[in-house]
């Protein structure tokens, strides 16, 4: 009898998976529509009830009544089920693969037991307009989670309303504006300073909030150039928006100097802590002197990324800025929780209601299940995993980690395949596509690239050593193939549902549609 356990390793290294993904060639769901086919047949209303109640639709205001039924596909249940499960087999994600390739996203495990909590009727059937006294439980969760975030960050008040990290950054730019307006400097302070390696949302959201954006260069070590800040800061500076560690994974030890200089010039400081996975329980934004910070609950705090949401960007501020937080916030008096709308200096709303309850419930459950010690351990393991990974990846010929050579990183690294590209003509994106033939994915970098031929990897604490080793072996194999058989790489992938997509079509609106309705309009052109 074969020993199947011995087939997974050779010389202590994991063998590459003989991976092949499903390819269903599945139509669009609208193509599956069959007239009058139904998934649920509603029971007839009894005559007695109908006679008493009449037509309930009469109560609907005229202007809210549909003229035509909604153009939904008509399909029965098993067909719907099969359709979506098939589509799910054609994707990759944190539930499927070693998802360490989505650096900065922090693709850690979203515990399924927390899904039970968030999906229980006690949580899922609540309506945000219910009176406060009927939703004390979820308000208590939000309030309690706020206390946890206060301890984690050192900030005084939090809002859960922003529906994403970007929304939280936009909210903080709005708070900065309101702060200066109330001090009579709203017109003169029209600039926000950020750094070249900060998340693009820092510049983008501040821009949308109406600010002029000034970007600082990196110094030769990869840290933001402090002298550049000295040159850039002025009485026109409203705020400084920074990420630390930045996407390179390098922690700036002089961050407090940046904050002090900004404060000396009357500017506020916002800490983009969307990804705090490597610093929980180790360092806090308050100690560095920041006035505002935010956390992406779908990154560090384990809530699922979903399909780009629903999400939450919890926004924290000092007591002085609490008056400006989005409305409503959750307040507590004598053990009674309520939504506080009486906030005259609030910036208003940046999201629906008071936040995504489902996200907060999951994040709270994660924090409570780990406790303070557990959260710190998670950060330490994430940092350890990342530095183990760094060492292993750099053993692959052609891979490098620009800046801070020889130094440890925090939770992620932006690598470069520049040497390999010079030798072989194969580019980073092509390596990533070929890696998908082994069931993994990696992300290059934000555009435009600073580090050439980039690859940004973030292991988090959720993967075993065996999984990290498997990922490295895949990279090693693909990098070697780039030398031995570059054409094979360039013609990949071979085991994925989709082959290469012709990007030329993306630039021609007559070649794509993002809704069925749009497709109907365009298809006969």
């Amino acid at each position, binding site marked *: 009898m074969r020993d199947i356990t011995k087939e997974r390793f050779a010389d202590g290294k994991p063998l590459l998976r003989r991976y092949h993904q499903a390819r269903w060639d599945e139509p669009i769901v609208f193509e599956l529509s069959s007239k009058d086919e139904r998934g649920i047949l509603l029971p007839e209303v009894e005559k007695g009830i109908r006679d008493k109640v009449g037509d309930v639709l009469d109560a609907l205001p005229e202007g809210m009544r549909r003229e035509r039924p909604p153009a939904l596909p008509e399909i029965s249940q098993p067909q719907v089920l099969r359709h979506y499960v098939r589509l799910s087999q054609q994707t990759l994600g944190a539930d499927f693969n070693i998802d360490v390739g989505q650096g900065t996203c922090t693709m850690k495990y979203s515990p399924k037991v927390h899904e039970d909590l968030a999906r229980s009727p006690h949580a899922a059937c609540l309506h945000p307009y219910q009176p406060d006294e009927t939703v004390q439980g979820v308000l208590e969760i939000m309030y309690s989670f706020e206390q946890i975030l206060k301890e984690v960050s050192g900030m005084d008040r939090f809002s859960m309303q922003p529906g994403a990290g970007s929304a939280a950054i936009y909210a903080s730019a709005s708070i900065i504006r309101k702060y200066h307006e109330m001090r009579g400097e709203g017109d003169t302070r029209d600039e926000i300073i950020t750094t070249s390696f900060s998340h*693009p949302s820092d510049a983008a959201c501040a821009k949308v909030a109406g600010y002029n954006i000034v970007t600082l260069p990196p110094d030769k070590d990869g840290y933001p150039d402090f002298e550049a800040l000295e040159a850039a800061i002025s009485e026109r500076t409203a705020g400084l928006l920074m990420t630390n560690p930045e996407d390179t994974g390098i922690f700036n030890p002089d961050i407090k100097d940046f904050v002090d200089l900004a404060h000396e010039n009357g500017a506020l400081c916002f800490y983009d802590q969307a990804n705090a996975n490597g610093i929980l329980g180790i360092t806090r934004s308050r100690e560095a002197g920041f006035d505002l910070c935010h956390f992406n609950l779908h990154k560090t705090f384990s809530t699922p990324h979903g399909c780009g949401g629903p999400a939450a960007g919890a926004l924290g501020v000092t007591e002085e800025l609490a008056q400006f937080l989005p409305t409503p916030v959750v307040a507590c008096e004598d053990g009674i929780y309520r939504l506080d709308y009486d906030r005259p200096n609030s910036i208003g709303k940046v999201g629906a209601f008071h936040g995504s309850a489902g996200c907060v419930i999951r994040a709270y459950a994660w924090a409570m299940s780990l406790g303070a010690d557990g959260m710190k351990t998670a950060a330490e393991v994430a940092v350890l995993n990342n530095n183990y990974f760094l060492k292993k990846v750099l053993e692959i010929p052609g891979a490098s980690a620009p800046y801070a050579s020889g130094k440890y990183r925090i939770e992620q690294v932006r690598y470069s395949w520049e040497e390999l590209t010079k030798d072989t003509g194969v580019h980073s994106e092509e390596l990533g596509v070929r890696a998908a033939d082994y069931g993994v994915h990696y992300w290059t970098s934000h555009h435009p690239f600073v580090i050439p031929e980039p690859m940004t990897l973030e292991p988090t604490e959720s993967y075993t050593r065996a999984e990290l080793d498997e990922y490295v072996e895949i990279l090693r194999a693909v990098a070697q193939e780039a030398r031995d058989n570059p054409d094979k790489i360039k013609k990949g992938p071979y085991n994925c549902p989709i082959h290469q997509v012709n990007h030329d079509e993306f630039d021609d609106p007559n070649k794509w549609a993002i809704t069925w309705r749009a497709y109907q309009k365009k298809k006969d052109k």
Partner: protein
Amino acid sequence: MCTPRPKLGLIVNPVAGLGGAVGLKGSDGVDTQEKALALGAVPLSPARATRALERLAKIKDLFDLFTCGGRMGLEATRSAGLAATVITDPGDVTTADDTRNAAQAMAGQGVDLLLFAGGDGTARDIYDAVGDSISVLGIPTGVKIYSGAYAVSPAAAGELAADFLQGKTKETHDAEVMDIDEASLRQGRVSAQLYGYLRIPRRRRLTQGVKASSDAGEAVAAAVAAADVVHDMKPGRYYVMGPGTTTRAVMSELKLEGTLMGVDVVRDGKLEARDAGEQQILDLVAGRDASVVVTVIGGQGYLLGRGNQQISAKVIREVGRENIIVVATRAKLNSLQWRPLLVDTGDDEVDALLSGYIRVVTGHDEQAVCKVGGLEV
């Protein structure tokens, strides 16, 4: 419908790179070449050209190849196993004239892409012959290359050429051709002047990835930055526009036909001077409200002193440091890895005046703070 096969031209400068390994810093001129050979230099150019061509072997039935006889192309094509039509035959000892003649012959042949193997000198010869009238791409074989018309490696050149010939990438962009003063280089000073622009294929990205925002594209980014500069232009003020593609974008925004390589002067949306020299500029701006608009030139990142000497130390003194507007795309700054920008006006005092940090317009209401250093070390 039957479309004709694309045509690829190949010119190899067999002596490019000759001086590098033996420390002569370049290979211009018969004397230098003879010296290099005497020092035991081995020509690298043909082998590197072959390496690039090997990447085209997989599509050899999809294009027609035109080249020059002997060491200027035919030998490399044979080594790569490709059939080619010879359209010029230079003989044993080749010179820059042969390169130029060959390039013109290729253009006459109607090649869709001209591959040339060499260094900065070869790029200048190609530019002299065909300018930006046809698409070209450099196979790097020279000593450290300052011109942007080259792929990062022979392999990369071959791959990009293959993609271009198959229509996988159709866009082209202007790449700087730099004029290197080899004599200075041998004395340890880099002196690279902007010589011209060649049109090279732009590599198309394979995937954008889930997290990437849409790539604005350099042309669009330059246009946006240019629009910001135009938006802030004051009535009655003179604007001295330096050379470069980003400053050209400013001229396009103003709907003016300036010179890509020269310095133009604009006021109230009108062209006051075209391809002006230093004196003409001084005559216009002396005692008047004026600004200088420059972009970043070359792979070293020069603001002043490399192709815009008309904007001299005198002009800078007249206009004032605070009236220098720098416009560049983020992509350009990224390609320099955000190294300090360089100035070399020939006047130490003015160079020192310009040192420190400067704001660079990179988009609408967007600036980058860049360090300005001295001469490149």
